[in-house]
C-alpha cells in the first residue's frame, strides 16, 4: 500500500464517526420523515397497521386555511422583526460605542433583555399590554381620554405589531453585541485617516464602521 492510499484511508477513517453521526441523526430521520409523510404513521404505537395513503397528508395541509395563515404570519413576522431588530441594535451599538458618560452602565442596561428568561420577558410585556389599564394603555388614555383602551394582543389589527415589538426588544441585545464588537474592532487610525481625507460623519460611517457593520450583520 503506497503512502498516498494509506493517507486517504486514514482520512476516511477519521471522518467516519462524523459521517456516521450525521447519517444517523440527520439523513436517516429526514428520509424516514419523507417516507412517513406518504403514510398514516402515528407517533404513539397503535393496534392497527400503518397504511400507505399517497398524497393525502399533503392535500390536507395545502387546503388547510390555518396552515396558510401560519405561513403568512411567519413571513410577515420575519419581514417586520428582522429589519427592526437590526436598526435598533445598530443604533444602540453606535450610541454605546461613542464616548458618552456612564457608558459601562448603559451597556449593562442594554443587554438586560438578553439575560432575562423568556417567561419574565412575557410577564413584563403582559403588564405593558394589559387591558384596560396596562402601561401602554395608560399612555393611550392621556390622548384618547379616560376609559379608552386598545386590546394590543387581542385585536387582529395590533396583535402582530405588538408581538414584533416584544420579540425585537427581547432579542436585540444579541445583534447589538455583535455590532459593538465589530465597531470596537476598527482601529482609531482609520477614523483619523478618514478625517484627514476630509470625510464627513456620514461618509466616514460608510467607509469604516459601515463596512464593519455590514460584516457584523452577515454574521448575526
Amino acid at each position: 500500500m503506497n503512502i498516498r492510499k494509506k493517507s486517504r484511508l486514514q482520512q476516511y477513517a477519521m471522518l467516519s464517526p462524523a459521517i456516521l453521526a450525521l447519517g444517523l441523526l440527520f439523513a436517516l430521520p429526514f428520509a424516514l420523515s419523507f417516507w412517513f409523510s406518504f403514510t398514516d404513521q402515528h407517533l404513539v404505537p397503535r393496534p392497527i397497521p400503518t397504511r400507505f395513503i399517497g398524497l393525502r397528508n399533503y392535500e390536507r395541509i395545502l387546503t388547510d386555511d390555518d396552515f396558510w395563515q401560519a405561513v403568512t404570519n411567519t413571513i410577515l413576522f420575519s419581514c417586520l422583526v428582522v429589519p427592526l431588530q437590526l436598526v435598533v441594535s445598530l443604533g444602540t451599538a453606535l450610541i454605546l460605542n461613542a464616548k458618552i458618560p456612564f457608558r459601562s452602565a448603559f451597556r449593562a442596561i442594554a443587554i438586560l433583555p438578553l439575560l432575562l428568561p423568556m417567561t419574565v420577558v412575557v410577564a413584563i410585556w403582559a403588564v405593558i399590554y394589559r387591558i384596560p389599564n396596562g402601561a401602554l394603555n395608560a399612555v393611550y388614555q392621556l390622548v384618547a381620554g379616560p376609559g379608552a383602551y386598545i386590546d394590543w394582543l387581542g385585536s387582529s389589527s395590533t396583535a402582530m405589531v405588538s408581538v414584533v415589538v416584544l420579540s425585537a426588544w427581547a432579542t436585540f441585545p444579541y445583534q447589538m453585541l455583535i455590532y459593538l464588537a465589530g465597531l470596537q474592532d476598527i482601529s482609531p487610525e482609520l477614523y483619523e485617516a478618514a478625517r484627514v481625507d476630509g470625510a464627513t460623519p456620514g461618509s466616514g460611517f460608510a467607509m469604516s464602521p459601515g463596512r464593519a457593520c455590514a460584516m457584523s450583520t452577515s454574521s448575526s
Partner: protein
Amino acid sequence: MKLKTLFLIGTAVVSFSATARAESLTVWVINGDSEKPYFAQLEEKYNASQSENTVDVVPIPGYTQAIQAATLSGDLPDVMLVDGPNMASLVWTGTLQPIDDLLDPEIKKDLLPGILAQGTYGPDGKLYQVGPYDSSEVLWGNRKLLEEAGIEIPTSVDDAWTADQLEDVLAKLKALPAVEWPLDMKLSDGVGEWLTYGWLPFLESNGGDVIDRETWVADGTMNSDANVAIMERLSDWVNKGYIVPASAGDNKFYGEKTAALAWVGNWMWSTHEKGLGDDLVLIPPPSFGDKGPVSSNGGFGWAVPASSTKLNAISSFLNFSMSREQVGLYADITGYIPARSSAVSFSKLYSSEGKGALFVDVANCCTMVRPVHPAYPVITSAFANAVDHIMTGKADVRDELDNAAETIDEDIEDNAGYPPFGR
C-alpha cells in the same frame, strides 16, 4: 449436621420468600403546587402503614409529554396518574391494564357515578382508571355587585338561571360603573382542555354534544343547528362586552373585582375565597336548554401500565390511596370534591353544611362525562380551537364547527374507526 443444614435451608427459603413479597413501587404523579403536599404525605403514610412494600411517589414536570416519551421508550412506572379524558386513548394503544381485580369492590361501589363512568372503557366495560377526586364547575358570584345590580341569586340547581335570564343579568351588571366586563370565562387560560371542559356543558344543556356517542361521527352533531345557536349567543356576549377578553388577565373576578361572575371549576376555591371573602357566592350552572344545568367532571386518576407486573403491591397501594381517609385528605388539601360518596360527609368544605355543598349537588345531579373514546385528544383539540376562534376572533361560528367536525372525522377515519369502536 443434618438438622443444621435443614435449619439453614429453611432460613434461606423464608428470607427468600420474604424478599420476593417485598416490592418497591414507582408512582408518577402530576407536579402541581396544590397537589405536592398531598402526594408527600401519601408516600410517607403508605410506607409507614406496612412493612412489605415501599413506594416512591415522583412528581413529574411536563406530565403528558413525559408519559408519551416513557410509553415510546418502555419506561413507564408501576402506577401513574392519567387524565380521565385521555384514558380511552391509552387503553386503545395497549398502554394500560384493567384494575377491576386490583381494587377493593367496596371502594368501587362507593365511587361517585361520574368517576366510575370516566374510568370505564366502553368496548370491554372494564375499569382502567380511578380518580381520588371529582371536579365540577359553577358560576361564582360577587354578592356585593350582584345585590348592587338588584339581581336575585339562585341557590339550588332547581332554580338555575336560563340562558335568557343570564343574559339579562349580564346586561344589568354591565351597567354598573364598577363592572368592566361582567363574566370571566377564563379565556386567559388560552387554548387547552379548559375550553372543552368549560364550553361543552352549554352544548349538552341544550341537547348537543361534540360527537354522536353511538355512531362516533362528529359531522351533524358538532356542527348541529342547536350548537351553532349556542355558540353564536356566546359570541354575541363577547361582542357586547359581557365576557372578560383573553388579554385582560386572570384576576378580574377575584383580584380587581371588575367582573361580577366567573365560570370556572372548584379548583379556584381558595383563590376566590381569599379574594372575595364573605362576598363570594356559589351559583348553579346556567341552563341553556331542555337538559337543565350541566357541568363537566373528572380529572386525573390512578392507572396501571400494561407493563406492570407487581400486581399485589399495586393493589395494596391503590386500595390505600383510595381509602376514605386518603380521599378525604385529597379533598381537604387540594380543594377537589372527594371521589367516594362516604368521604363527602367527612369533608369540612363539601359536607351538606359546608360552603362547597353546591359542588357536590352539581356532581351528583348534573355532570356529563366528556367522551370516553380513543379520539378524545383530537376531539378536545378541534373543539377547543373552534371555541378559541369563536370567542376571540369574531370567526364564523358554523365554519369553525364544520372544520372541527371534519378534523375529528378525518382522525377517526385515519384510525380505521378505532376498532372495536367502529363507525
